[in-house]
């Protein structure tokens, strides 16, 4: 998540072999997908808070669509990651804490999608709001740990 991946970096490489399809701009494509899904999950916390404050159902709908889109992108990220794994690409050690944290965020978001599919107020308050908050915390901590580990491994070799 801390890879500063932006749209301008995302060049899709031609369909020549499995390895290159799973890459984008020299970075694994799953990281880009994961970054987008994380942004959607965190966006849902913002729209949840706005719904809680305004009780305007439009914001509740934003939340469930954001979570759904996040889950779809997360699914694609997992597929891209699996392709990397099976294609035998080197997955460096610091990636593992990130992967576990991200998997937890996906699971919580899946539950959150079901909670957000309830009707009216209790789709968000309190459980949906709490889950969106929890997912955000998990994602931020994952990013933080990932950064620390990445720096340590770079420094310590």
């Amino acid at each position: 998540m801390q890879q500063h991946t932006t749209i301008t970096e995302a060049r899709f490489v031609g369909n020549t072999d499995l390895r290159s399809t799973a890459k984008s701009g020299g970075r694994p494509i799953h990281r880009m997908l994961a970054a987008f899904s994380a942004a959607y999950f965190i966006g849902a916390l913002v729209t949840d808070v706005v719904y809680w404050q305004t009780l305007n159902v439009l914001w509740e709908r934003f939340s469930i669509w954001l979570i759904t889109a996040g889950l779809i992108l997360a699914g694609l990220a997992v597929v891209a990651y699996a392709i990397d794994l099976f294609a035998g690409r080197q997955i460096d050690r610091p990636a593992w804490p990130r992967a576990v944290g991200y998997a937890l965020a996906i699971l919580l978001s899946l539950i959150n999608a079901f909670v957000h599919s309830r009707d009216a107020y209790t789709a968000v308050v309190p459980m949906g709001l709490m889950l969106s908050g929890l997912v955000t915390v998990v994602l931020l901590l994952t990013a933080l740990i990932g950064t620390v580990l990445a720096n340590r491994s770079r420094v310590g070799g």
Partner: protein
Amino acid sequence: MMRALNIAASAKLPRLAILLATVAGLGLAGCDDHAGDPKRQIGANPVLPEIQQYLMPPMRVAKVVGWGEDETPAAPQGLQVHALATGLEHPRSLYVLPNGDVLVVESNGPKAPVNRPKDIITGWVQSFAGAKAKDANRITLLRDNGDGSPKLRTVFLDHLNSPFGVALVGHDLYVANTDAIVRYPYEDGQTSIAAAGTKLTDLPGGPIDHHWTKALLASPDGSKLYVGVGSNSNITENGIGAEYERAAIWEVDRASGAHRIYASGIRNPTGLQWEPETGKLWAIANERDEIGPDLVPDYLTSVRDGGFYGWPYSYYGQHLDPRVEPQRPDLVATAIAPDYALSSHVAPLGVAMYTGTDLPANYRSGAFVAEHGSWNRTPLNGYKVVFVPFSGGQPSGPAQDVVTGFLDADNHARGRPVGLAVDRTGGLLIADDVGNTVWRVSSVRPGSVSSIR
């Protein structure tokens, strides 16, 4: 819920295993459903359990198999059931004209918009229950002379817009489309109407139009029309603004088209009928979903002028629904508990107060109620026509099953009863919108078989 969280918390497991375990856990949570005996929820004082909120609301639709050759619904001894007409397109409601002609409203709801991912899933599941059948948008006329003389079936009115209610006052025939009441000129014995209709008033229609059926009933003096206007959501998930003048019974002035809200807080009122003994207005209502297999019981009730019946804020009087915010304690305080619960999720959609003489004496005072059947409860509930006995203008005993057999032994749907009417000779007519048939229930008499095929 807790089960899934606990599994997620032990994140030491391989990810795939966690995912599988969680999905399985969610599935179990979805089936964690302890539906009670529906009999405990029939009558004036239904047992109301605690509210349950789901991760995955149960969906249990009866797969449609249709009626086999010579299969008919079942009725108790002394009654017989015959098909009056088959091969209809989603017959939804019935109206009997003074000369005995039967109008069959073939109709289905407008296409539901997708506002949330859930709407896609719900639409897909309900398509298995035949709810998305072709929409003929027309009214078919059936004439059955009953003595072997030629029988007639014509297209009476075509190109309507999700019609449901029909009412005749003098020579004015009113059709309640989902978005307007339209008046047509009608002469006795007419078998089709070509004249363009005249709009009497608009009714709340699209773009959401969650409950689209507009039931219609004329006052005995013909000066007013009563219209059942269902809510625009299960429980305000489309916003309270979408509910303006909905979940209500309208009183429309027949001369001017002006309307006022006669009663409100009734989630989906249909089956408007005058109780013959007291002359009071009665209705059935479909109550809210997704708070448990035994909440909230659908009901049959008299409707008071100016009465508020709770939706969306509360049910059965002052039982609050936590899904509705902001609440309205001022309205809840005035909420009237309905007269007679029919048990949960049976989906009553047709009522016939019986005033005929053909059926046996035990059916001569009371209301037949068609229960379309549940789609979110295990075991299934409804899928039959019941009789609620009345005495002194009030229900006087438990509902009795009258017409059954809409489900087969495997709980597959041969048909689903919707609209009811009593024909000129006192037979009970049942519109079956999945079996695409109109059934006629009558007393057993030798040689009284009738059908229009």
